């Protein structure tokens, strides 16, 4: 996609010079951000990218003046908006600028809008604050702006409440709100992270389109290099509060100079599945036949709506093989996983494990078979009981099946080494570990049961890309070492491409396509798969690979 010529930068809207902000004492480092300098030009999209804790969000919030002064205090440098330093502005002056000259959109569209106020009024409020337009003039302008962000039927949507809209629609409302007064600078803090890949693509296009039409300077915060590749003109890479590298997008993505950037970019799984040697077919570890799950929220007298979460799902996994399940939120991929592990009871179909159908078994009859299937969840911070030591969590399972405490502890120590953690960490509490370490502990806990099938339900989605790479590597190793059958559930097509031998695509509870990963990615047969692959950000950018 033709980007602006590298060297000649457009007229500056926002200039950050040597900005430093301190963290409250007792934090793990002194500065949240230290000596940050970069500029955002008119009609230019500058992406600030980095892992969690790199300070990218603090930078954005400092510019908008939204940081809690008593915790994070700017101690040096300037943030010039069209030449005026925002750091010295009084609260009142800053309020004047917000919305008029600079605006911001946030990550969680679900909670960013006031749930008890009509959507139209929330946009109108921006005008109410900064202009002296009459109510009718405001309403007209609101409808105009809603149309500008291609919201369907603005008149009807004007009087709706946020909970009645989809994630994508709410983000469009946020953008409409931000652009109501045509500010020179738009700050977007991970606006598409919480959205499905197809909606994300539409929002990114919308931002590019508006930015070009209105010549707004956009400061775009993200941790996803796919998004950077998709829209960035200029890229700033941050680590631990410092700018390690910045420059035009093509140069940063193509030939990164700083080792940290190189490591980051090479950790981004590529969308092109590797050629895998043809595996000889091993015996079946897990067979699911015609699996159904319907939720009926009917009450005492109320006739409830029927929600078909999963319909007629068929899948087979052989030992040593990884089957991927991809799809957007609400596609039913997690429901299938939870039915297999019997955390929820399927309404129909069979789940065959070591020759036995466990779909309808009662709890006592089911218990012996539970050890054969184990699961690793998405959120590392809620997968371990905060009030029990890591060791206690791991030994709990084996001891349910007869191992003595000593034997179980021995197995736990061995597994800690397998997942790359020091065994003496067993008697520590979960809050003393990082996200990545906790996910490894969860894997150890699953392996402690010596399962035949391991299910990873979005197991790496909450991790930073570098940590993600290590955990994926660990999963691959344990699969080979313990000859496991693995069911890998994810919404991230890049991860699926690299990890899964075969892939299954789900939409609204139905399996629309399945087959060898390389074949499905090369030429998808179902239109939905095609749309999914097409929407994956940065798909036609080749990321620099480490030697």
């Amino acid at each position, binding site marked *: 996609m033709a980007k602006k010529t590298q060297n000649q930068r457009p007229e500056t809207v926002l200039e950050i010079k040597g900005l430093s902000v301190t963290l409250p004492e007792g934090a793990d480092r002194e500065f949240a951000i230290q000596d940050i300098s970069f500029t955002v030009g008119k009609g230019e999209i500058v992406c600030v990218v980095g892992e969690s804790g790199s300070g990218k969000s603090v930078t954005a919030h400092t510019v908008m003046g939204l940081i809690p002064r008593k915790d994070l205090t700017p101690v040096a440098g300037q943030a010039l908006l069209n030449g005026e330093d925002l750091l010295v502005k009084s609260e009142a002056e800053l309020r004047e600028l*917000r919305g008029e000259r600079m605006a911001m959109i946030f990550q969680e569209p679900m909670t960013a809008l*006031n749930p008890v106020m009509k959507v139209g009024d929330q946009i109108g409020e921006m005008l109410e604050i900064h202009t002296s337009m009459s109510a009718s003039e405001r309403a007209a302008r609101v409808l105009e702006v809603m149309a500008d962000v291609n919201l369907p039927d603005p008149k009807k949507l004007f009087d709706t409440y946020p909970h009645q809209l989809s994630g994508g629609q709410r983000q469009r409302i946020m953008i409409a709100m931000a652009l109501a007064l045509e500010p020179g600078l738009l700050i977007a803090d991970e606006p598409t992270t919480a959205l499905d890949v197809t909606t994300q693509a539409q929002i990114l296009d919308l931002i590019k389109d508006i930015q070009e039409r209105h010549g707004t300077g956009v400061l775009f915060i993200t941790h996803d290099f796919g998004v950077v590749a998709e829209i960035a003109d200029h890229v700033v890479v941050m680590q631990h509060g410092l700018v390690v590298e910045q420059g035009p997008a093509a140069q940063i993505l193509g030939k990164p100079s700083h080792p940290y950037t190189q490591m980051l970019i090479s950790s981004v799984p590529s969308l092109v599945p590797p050629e895998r040697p043809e595996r000889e077919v091993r015996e079946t570890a897990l067979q699911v036949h015609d699996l159904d799950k319907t939720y009926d929220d009917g009450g005492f007298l109320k006739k409830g709506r029927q929600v078909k979460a999963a319909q007629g799902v068929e899948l087979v996994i052989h030992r040593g093989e990884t089957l991927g399940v991809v799809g957007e939120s609400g596609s039913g991929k997690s429901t299938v996983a939870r039915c297999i592990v019997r955390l929820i009871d399927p309404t129909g179909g069979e789940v065959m494990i070591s020759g036995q159908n466990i779909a309808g078994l009662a709890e006592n009859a089911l218990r012996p078979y539970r050890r054969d299937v184990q699961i690793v969840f998405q959120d590392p911070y809620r997968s371990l009981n905060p009030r029990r030591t890591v060791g206690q969590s791991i030994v709990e399972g084996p001891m349910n099946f007869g191992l003595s405490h000593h034997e179980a502890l021995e197995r736990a120590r061995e597994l800690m080494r397998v997942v790359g953690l020091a065994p003496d960490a067993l008697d520590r509490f979960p809050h003393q570990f990082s996200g990545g370490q906790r996910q490894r502990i969860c894997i150890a806990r699953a392996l402690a049961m010596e399962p035949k099938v391991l299910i990873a339900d979005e197991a790496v989605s909450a991790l930073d890309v570098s940590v993600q790479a290590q955990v994926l590597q660990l999963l691959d190793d344990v699969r080979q070492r313990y000859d496991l059958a693995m069911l890998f559930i994810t919404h991230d097509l890049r991860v699926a491409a690299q990890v899964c031998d075969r892939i299954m695509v789900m939409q609204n509870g139905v399996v629309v396509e399945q087959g060898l990963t390389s074949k499905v990615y090369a030429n998808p047969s179902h239109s939905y798969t095609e749309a999914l692959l097409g929407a994956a950000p940065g798909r036609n950018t080749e990321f620099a690979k480490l030697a």
Partner: protein
Amino acid sequence: MLGYVIRRVLATIPVMVIVAAFVFLMLRLSPGDPASVIAGDYATAEDIARIREQLGLNEPILVQFTKWIAGLAQGDLGTSIFTNLPVTTLIAQRIEPTIMLTLTTIIFTVLVAVPLGTIAAWKAGSWIDRAVMVFSVAGFSVPVFVLGYILIYVISIQLQWLPVQGYRSMFEHGVGPFLRHIIMPTVTLSVIFIALIARMTRASVMEVLQEDYVRTARAKGQSEMKVLLSHALRNAAVPIVTVIGIGIALLIGGVVVTESVYNIPGLGRLVLDAVLARDYPIIQGLILFFSFIYILINLVIDLSYTLFDPRIRY
């Protein structure tokens, strides 16, 4: 919505039956019986027995219970043993003071406690916050009657601004006398209620101020006052209203004491006298009446949620 209301009202019936059975059995299984109190000082054993017979207290408990429930069905709460008047008339005579006292207390409390709690949450950690919290904890700790006596002694006896006691109905005697007589009881009763609501408002508003949409509002350049009122408080309304509902149960305890200290002829005193004189019909009737009112208030509060939060639909 109507379907929901009907279902809720139907659901109160099993609860009321549980309450009725519980209270009825509790009275019958305890020592002391009204017949001997009526018979008076030197009634012989047969006098007492005959009175018990005449009051139907000798019949098996189950029979008495079914008779009472049958009466209940047609809205007859039974007749007071002592005054020979139907319980419903007794309640009717004395319902107005209690209802008015409760209403003025709720209104006064909400007008004082909600702003206090909101400011405390807004300026969390400041001296105002600490002051509001200390007052609210103190409010919980002072016995109602001590406060009542102090107020009467200072305001009525020494300063003679307000009358000592009594109740004037707004309809019979005009608003002036009504207010003069209701101010002190309302203040006395409100202290503990303000403490509860202020504390809860502070907690809910503080929680709401962390929400993303408050940050969005600030990002729009909205003034702190507007952010507090139209965004924070409106979203905190549902938890605050819930606490007001729960608090009302707490109020009834206070009403009994306040009515006795300020000599207000309300329902609180009626049930108190009835308990000490073992007038079973009044005790049963009133406890049932109070619990029905409480359930009704909860229903009204649940329905009011729809006003505050569009997400709640029945």
